[in-house]
């Protein structure tokens, strides 16, 4: 198992989990999301290949109302 953080909250996921799989585990549709892995954006097209490692810090963001 891997210990990671998602938006600063600790999470445990199986070894070999990809970004795509992580979104699935969290029940999120990737449609309006962007993912940052250790401060680097992972483009949508790379979610399937990008594998997580122990200690990874993930940010998952979306768009909200703003000025």
């Amino acid at each position, binding site marked *: 198992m891997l210990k990671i953080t*998602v*938006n600063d*909250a600790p999470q445990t996921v199986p070894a070999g989990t990809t970004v795509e799989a992580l979104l699935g585990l*969290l029940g*999120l549709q*990737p*449609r*309006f*999301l*962007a*993912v*940052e892995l250790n*401060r680097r*954006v992972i*483009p*949508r097209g790379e979610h399937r290949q990008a594998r997580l490692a122990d200690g990874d810090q993930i*940010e*998952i*963001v*979306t*768009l*909200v*109302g*703003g*000025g």
Partner: protein
Amino acid sequence: MSAVLESLLVLGSHQLSSRLIVGTGKYATFELMQECLAISGSDVITVAVRRERLMDASGRNILDFIDLDRYTILPNTAGCFTADEAVRTARLGREILSSVGNPGASWVKLEVLGDKKTLLPDPVATLEATRELVADGFEVLCYTTDDPITARRLQEAGATSVMPAGSPIGSGQGILNPNNIRICLEYLKENDPNYPVIVDAGVGTASDVAFAMELGCDGVLLNTAIASAQDPKRMAEAMKLACQAGRLASHAGRIPRKLYATASSPETGLISPGVR
């Protein structure tokens, strides 16, 4: 419609028919926001980038309420207090807009704030972030103060548009220092009369928008003045008309200010000629 109102606002790779850019924050409902955006006639609407709420059950996303074929989304870096946070936020916004195929993926409204009480920009960090984002291929629209020297620095750093605040964000105080805006306009347009200058922040009501346009600004960006008005839909229409009225007036050329009166009616032919 007059040629002045038909001329497009060119912001980097974007050509806009409306000179009013409106925000999407603070609306009571997404439906009210939708109506106000339509009434405002804006082509460009701003949004913010925030963490996905992993526990939220409603599942409603603002993008479900925005016609992505009609509007160009301008993502902001609101709430960032360092250049590093702002650059990361800009890249995340670009990733979302690239994924949905919106032309707003090319640009960002850069805000790097200096303090929570005033929400005034940190000019040093804003300049640093502008350089980094321009190098990364962004068209950077810079929120800044009305300081002409900072404005010139941001332009030199490659900002697509410099956007001085009329007054602090959400304060509704209008344009507090029109002379500084005038100097910003003079400096920024010195070598390129078409360089776009947009008043961003502080608008309280329609006359503030008209005034900004009369000064010679190319556009106005606002959010709270519509979203928090007692009747947001009516205010959205007022802002649209004020933007057009101000632009027309700016091009019409106003009369000079004089201390004493000049009669509009003939001074001769009065039934009781007299002198006071």
